[in-house]
């Protein structure tokens, strides 16, 4: 007992959950593995290279920023938050993105969106989405190099692992390949363009790119994203309010217009399984730092993202609205938090 007497006495509580920030972040990464596998199956190894470039740049930027602020580097790097940012940004980028663009986005995400605001816990905007939007407005052409999914009947030329890598490093393609022949519009992009050309939804959906709900291949990736998301819910890493709010907001607004005019407005299923909707609902909007903190607030925050996503997809000039929706709702967080504070126990105004 002598050791205890000499040392300063510990203070209650004497028990703590073993689930620390790095554990949470690692679980987020594990939950992305099914989606990564599905993505690689349908679109090749581009995402893996994206992740490598984004994570390397994220960690380097994080270390540099901490160094400049003379803050301890090891502990901050070991919390995996920069890795998660890099991976999520990589998921948002097309498989044929030059490495320096990926790295630039990652650097912006960590350096500007995160550390300029004071580092982890203080950033107002979701770093991954801020980085993505910065790239989207700076390099709109390079961010359209999406590939068609690897499906038997789709006209698919494919690009090998090495060729993919070579393109990302140097921008060159093997002889006989052209970027135009390789790349395809995403289903969301196609839908938006063709609807703009006054064609009907049913007509557009005749393209072999479309499956049961969204794009072929994309639907499967969506399923695996949701699988990871459900696991996060099950493990308590995220709570249900934001995913339900976001998907509810998106599906409700899509249903409303679909019921009103199904010829010109694609179905809610299409919106649910296209683009980044599911990834956003489970992995991006749920970033706790930039989200609302109260339960009611999180429902509102999620619903806001869902509705904005729909509005931007339908009437905006970008095919997907997830990133903009998240950033816009990030700005409303202080307001939402302020007006959704729970009433503390025993402080309710007495009812007369």
């Amino acid at each position, binding site marked *: 007992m002598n*050791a*205890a007497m000499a040392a300063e006495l*510990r203070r209650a509580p*004497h*028990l703590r959950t073993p689930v*620390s*920030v790095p554990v*949470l972040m690692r679980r987020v990464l594990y939950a992305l593995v099914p989606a990564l596998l599905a993505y690689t199956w349908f679109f090749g190894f581009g995402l893996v290279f994206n992740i490598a470039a984004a994570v390397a740049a994220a960690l380097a930027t994080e270390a540099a920023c901490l160094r400049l602020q003379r803050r301890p580097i090891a502990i901050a790097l070991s919390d995996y938050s920069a890795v998660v940012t890099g991976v999520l940004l990589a998921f948002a980028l097309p498989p044929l993105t030059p490495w320096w663009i990926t790295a630039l986005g990652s650097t912006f995400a960590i350096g500007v969106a995160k550390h300029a605001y004071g580092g982890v*816990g203080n950033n107002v905007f979701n770093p991954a989405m801020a980085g993505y939007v910065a790239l989207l407005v700076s390099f709109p052409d390079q961010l359209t190099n999406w590939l068609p999914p690897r499906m038997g009947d789709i006209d698919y030329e494919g690009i090998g692992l090495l060729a993919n890598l070579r393109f990302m490093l140097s921008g060159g393609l093997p002889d006989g390949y052209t970027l135009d022949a390789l790349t395809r519009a995403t289903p969301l992009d196609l839908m938006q363009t063709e609807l703009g050309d006054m064609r009907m939804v049913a007509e557009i959906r005749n393209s072999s790119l479309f499956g049961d709900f969204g794009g072929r291949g994309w639907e499967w990736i969506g399923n695996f994203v949701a699988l990871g998301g459900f696991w996060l819910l099950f493990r308590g890493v995220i709570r249900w309010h934001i995913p339900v709010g976001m998907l509810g907001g998106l599906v409700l607004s899509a249903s409303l217009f679909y019921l009103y005019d199904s010829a010109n407005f694609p179905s809610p299923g299409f919106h649910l399984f296209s683009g980044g909707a599911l990834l956003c609902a489970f992995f991006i909007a749920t970033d706790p730092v930039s989200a609302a903190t109260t339960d009611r607030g999180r429902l509102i925050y999620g619903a806001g993202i869902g509705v904005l996503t729909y509005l931007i997809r339908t009437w905006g000039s970008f095919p997907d609205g997830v990133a903009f929706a998240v950033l816009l709702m990030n700005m409303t967080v202080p307001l939402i938090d302020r007006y959704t504070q729970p009433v503390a126990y025993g402080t309710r105004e007495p009812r007369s």
Partner: protein
Amino acid sequence: MNQPLLYNRQPPRPAWGVRVDPRKTLSTSEPIVAAPLPTQVQLPLELGPERRAQAVVAPGDYVYTGQPVARLETGARNVVCASISGRVAAIRPGPIPGPGPRVAECIVIDSDGQDRRHADCVPAGDPARLAAARLRELIAQAGIVGLGGAVFPTADKLGGSQPVDLLIVNGAECEPYISCDEMLMRERAAQVLDGARIMLRALGCDRAVVAVESDMPAARLALRAALDADRDPRLDIAEVTAKYPAGGERQLVELLTGREVPAGGLPRDVGIVCQNVATAAAVSELFRTGCPLISRIVTVTGGGILNPVNVEARLGAPLADLVAAAGGYTTTNCDLVMGGPMMGMALAGDRLPVTEATNCLLVAAPGELSDAQPGYPCIRCAECSRVCPARLLPQELLVACDTQDPDRLEQLHLDACIECGCCDYVCPSRLTLTPVFAQAKIRQRAHREQQRQARLAQQRSEARNARLAAAEKRYADGPAPDAGEAALTDLLARVEQRDERGDGG
């Protein structure tokens, strides 16, 4: 007060709170054992916050078990009884369990090994026939206080003018490791019910419910059997979900009745009184055998104890005796905690006396409790507010504590914090929350007092300024009339007035 009581249907599952490995079975396999008579006891005269006693015996006096040895500093009421017979060795400051090393004046009694009962320790008569006020007086003189840990005087809780429609006898022992209440209910259920009945009479209330947690079926069965034998329609059992801190007084009131105790108030304000099951048993003991509060059941448990068990120990006995009664230590560098792992106080050693608040002695083996680990910045995950039973926003409170912003702390209802430790428990950033809040509460109280003083000072100064201004005005208006003359005029005017009213007085 006319809301229906909810306790007879399934209580709602609380959204707040945490599920912690209960580890109660460590100490529930063996029946309660009586610790051997201590050779010396040390009875602190500091009975609680702002409640001190004064010795009525002197060193060298012989005292019997149960004999009053100290009375309240304020008022002549006896409140401390000798827990063994023998000679008063000294009245001197000694270490007592408390946050940090604490010292208080103690009566030290050397046992004569006889445990001779004081002649006054006889039942005062059938409690069903005694008046409520008399019951409360006897309970107060027997030194009976809340044995759940808060040591609030039981008689004071039973008195008071507000109407009470429900007595909750709290057996919902929600802290991990602690099992003294559970074992008491299992072994002495009839005594608990008897005490509850006496307390109902002292309260002038006709409904009592014994609250147990859903993970103590043996205790519930024992109570049910006692209740069936008892056939008192005023008594009942209620079960609450086993989740920490469901057994907290305010939380229990909310779970069982849906009522909320107002901030800064007591359960009494919503027509409820809570008493611990051990307190009920002590009340029964007093009226059935005449024995005042001289002992309590302490759970001696943890990985650092050879045979974890519940020990019935005399008040003032050294904790080391309890450890010995439970087989001794398993290793030499254990952590000692008085109470449970969520709210318990770390102790510097085992040379401290058992007090009324000692419900558990947790002897943790190395690694059994969480060690301090590197913290991370808050990531606003809000798990802390999800588990907070007071529905506070601990992450916002922490910021306000760091910036020492008293107005913000007020706005965030820091005072509603019950210091249960749930927020610390779940925090993935391993932030220190509860200890910071506990300190801030003390500062906040000082701040409020300061503000009150400042307001008073301001009022005084304003009043003085007004007087000065009036005097100045009078002076400026012209030479003041002679003081005596003014008084005379005033008196004449009043006499005139009285005569006009004609009331003659």
